[in-house]
C-alpha cells in the first residue's frame, strides 16, 4: 500500500507533533501516553507514530521489527484522541489501527501479535487454550447457561481463562445471583468479543467474530448483555450495531450501580479500606463512563475513595490495551505504565487499588509484585469489593 491507498492518506500529515497527546489531566507531565512513558523516545509518542507511519507508507523508511513494535506498543487507550486539540483528532487512533491493519495484511506483525491472532483464529481466545475449556471458570458456581434469561453475562477471554480473571468472573456471577438478577452465560460456546482484534488491525477477523457473536446472541434471543470486561462492553455497544447487533449492553459496574441504588443488592457488609480507582480506558475515555464505578464504591460502606492525580479522562492506561496484556511490548521496566500507575496509586495513601477490568487487574497486580508493594497495596476488582460487602467469600 502507498500513502494514496491508505484510508487516512489525506490527513495523516496534519499532525504537527505539538505533544498535547502526551498530557494527562492537565499538563503535569508528558507521560500519559503509555508507550511514550515507557520508552521516552519521540518515536513512541502518538505524533512520532503518525510521522513514522507516514514515512513508512511514503517509502522514506522500511518496515522493520522495530517499526512494528513501535506501532503495536500503542495500547489504543485514546489519551491522544482526547487530548489532541486539532479537528482531525477523532481519527488519530484510527490512523494507527489502519497502519496496524496494513502490517496485518502484509503479515509483518510482531511475533506475539501473530500468536495472539492465530490463537483467536484457532481457539477464540488469545491464550491458545482450548475452546472446550472456556467454561471451566464457572465450575461449582451454579451459574446457568443462557437460555432466555433477562441478561446474557458475557465474560470475555480474560475472565474465562486468566486465573485472576476467573476469580473475578466467579465473584461477579455470585453477586448477580445474590441480587436475584436473571442471567445466564455461554460457557464453552462463548467466543472472543473481538475488541482487541480490531485494535490490532485484524479487521476481517474482527468482522467475523462480530458477525458470529451477533448471530449467536440473536439466535438465543439475547436482548440485554452485561459484560465483565469494558473491552467487551465497548465493542458490543459501539461496534456490534454495525453488524445489526442492537443489544442493550451494560458494563457490570453500571448494573451494580442501579442494583445498589434501588436496594436490589445489600452491601451493608461494607468494605473497610482506603480505595483509589483506576479508570479502564474502554470504560472511561472510550465510553465516558466515569461515574458508575465510583458510585458503586461510594455506596459501599467503609470505602473511603481517594483519587489519583490522573483520573477520568486523564487516567494513565495500565498498558494492557491494544492486546498488550498479552503481547506485552510495554513490560519489563520500572517505566512500564502499570508500574508507574501502581506507584501513583500508592502515593494517594490508598491500600486498595480498585479496577473494573480484568485486563487492568492482571496488569496492575503484576506491577504491584514487580514494585514490591504487596504489603501496601492490594489490587481488587470492584466485583470483589462488592462481593465482600454483600457477604460473598
Amino acid at each position, binding site marked *: 500500500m502507498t500513502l494514496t491507498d491508505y484510508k487516512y492518506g489525506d490527513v495523516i500529515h496534519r499532525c504537527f507533533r505539538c505533544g498535547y497527546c502526551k498530557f494527562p489531566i492537565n499538563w503535569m507531565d508528558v507521560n500519559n501516553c503509555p508507550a511514550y512513558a515507557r520508552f521516552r523516545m519521540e518515536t513512541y509518542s502518538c505524533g512520532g507514530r503518525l510521522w513514522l507511519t507516514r514515512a513508512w507508507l511514503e517509502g522514506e523508511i522500511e518496515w522493520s521489527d522495530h517499526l512494528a513494535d513501535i506501532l503495536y506498543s500503542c495500547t489504543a487507550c485514546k489519551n491522544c484522541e482526547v487530548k489532541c486539540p486539532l479537528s482531525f483528532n477523532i481519527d488519530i487512533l484510527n490512523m494507527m489501527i489502519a497502519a496496524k491493519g496494513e502490517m*496485518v*495484511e*502484509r*503479515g*509483518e*506483525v510482531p*511475533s506475539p*501479535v*501473530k500468536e495472539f*491472532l*492465530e490463537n483467536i*483464529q*484457532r*481457539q477464540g481466545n488469545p491464550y*491458545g*487454550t*482450548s*475452546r*472446550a*475449556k472456556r467454561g471451566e471458570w464457572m465450575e461449582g458456581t451454579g451459574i446457568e447457561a443462557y437460555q432466555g434469561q433477562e441478561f446474557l453475562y458475557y465474560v470475555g477471554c480474560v475472565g474465562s481463562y486468566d486465573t485472576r480473571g476467573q476469580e473475578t468472573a466467579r465473584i461477579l456471577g455470585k453477586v448477580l445471583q445474590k441480587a436475584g438478577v436473571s442471567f445466564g452465560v455461554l460457557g464453552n460456546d462463548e467466543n472472543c468479543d473481538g475488541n482487541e482484534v480490531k485494535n490490532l488491525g*485484524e*479487521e*476481517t*477477523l474482527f468482522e*467475523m467474530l462480530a458477525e458470529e457473536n451477533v448471530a449467536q446472541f440473536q439466535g438465543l434471543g439475547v436482548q440485554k448483555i452485561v459484560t465483565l470486561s469494558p473491552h467487551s462492553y465497548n465493542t458490543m455497544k459501539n461496534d456490534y450495531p454495525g453488524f445489526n447487533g442492537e443489544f442493550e449492553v451494560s458494563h457490570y459496574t453500571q448494573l451494580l450501580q442501579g442494583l445498589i441504588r434501588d436496594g436490589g443488592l445489600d452491601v451493608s457488609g461494607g468494605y473497610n479500606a482506603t480505595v483509589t480507582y483506576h479508570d479502564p480506558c474502554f470504560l472511561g475515555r472510550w465510553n465516558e463512563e466515569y461515574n458508575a464505578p465510583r458510585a458503586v464504591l461510594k455506596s459501599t460502606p467503609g470505602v473511603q475513595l481517594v483519587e489519583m492525580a490522573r483520573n477520568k479522562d486523564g487516567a494513565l492506561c495500565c498498558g494492557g490495551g491494544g492486546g498488550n496484556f498479552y503481547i506485552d511490548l510495554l513490560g519489563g521496566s520500572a517505566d512500564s505504565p502499570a508500574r508507574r500507575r501502581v506507584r501513583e496509586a500508592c502515593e494517594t495513601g490508598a491500600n486498595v487499588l480498585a479496577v473494573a477490568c480484568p485486563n487492568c487487574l492482571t496488569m496492575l497486580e503484576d506491577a504491584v509484585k514487580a514494585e514490591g508493594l504487596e504489603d501496601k497495596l492490594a489490587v481488587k476488582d470492584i466485583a470483589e469489593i462488592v462481593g465482600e460487602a454483600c457477604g460473598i467469600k
Partner: protein
Amino acid sequence: MDIIACIKRVPDTSEADFIKIDPAQRDIEKDRLAFKINNWDEYALEAAVQLKEKLGGTLTAITVGPEDWNEVLRRALAMGADNAIRIDRDVSADDAYTVAVILERVIQRLSYDLVLFGAQSEDFGSGQLGAMVAEMLGIPHATLVTVLEAEEGKVHTQRELEAGTLQSYTIELPALLTVHTGINQPRYISLRGIRSAMQKELQVMALDDPGLSPETLVPMVKLEKLELPPKGKEAELIAGAPEEAAERLAKILKDAGIF
C-alpha cells in the same frame, strides 16, 4: 526458481491434559481438538515464499491427506504459493514410508529446483519423510536447515547440530532440504488473506492419478499401540511463607543433585 513445499496438518495439542487415546489405541481422540499447520512446515513455507519473492519462479504446496487438510493448503496459498495439490488419502494409519512413496510419485512429475519439508512433524515426529523422499528422488538433501541462501543453481545452507554447532553446505540443485524452526519468522496470515485464498484453485489428486493404488502401498512399519505415559509420582505443591518455601525448594534441588 521453482520450489515445492510439502506440508501437513496436525492437531493443536498444546494442552497435555486434553489428549485422550481412542479406544482402538491407534490414534488420539480428535473431536475436541483444533487443528493447524505443522509448526516446522510453516517455517518451510515461509522460507519458500521468501526465496520466491527474492528470485521469482513458482511455489507449489503439496499435502497428502483427507479433505479437511485443504485448510493447510489454503494457508499456503495465502502465504504466496501459486499451486496447491492434495493427494486424497486418509493417512492416519500410514507410516512415513508410505507417504514418501506417494509424494515421490507426485513430485517427480513436476518441474522443480528445490523441495522443502519441515524437519519433523508435531504429531508423530519421525523426522524421516524428507530424507526418504530425497533418496527416492535421487537428489541431494540436508536436514535441520537453519540458514538458507540461494543463487543460480545452488543453495548455501547451515544445519544446526547439538550444542549449537553449525555445519555449512553448498548444495547443487535440484535438492531437498528439511527446515528447522528459527530459520525465519513466519508471516501472519490474515483472515482476509485466507478468505481470498479460498477463491484460488486447489488441485485434488486421487491415488491413481500418479498411478498408485492402495494395494501397492505397503507400510514398512506398523503401529501397534498408542498409549499415554504412566502417571508419575504426584507433584509436590510447596506451601508456606516465601522463605520456608524457598528453603524447601533449595533442599529438593540439592537432594536431587541439581546443585
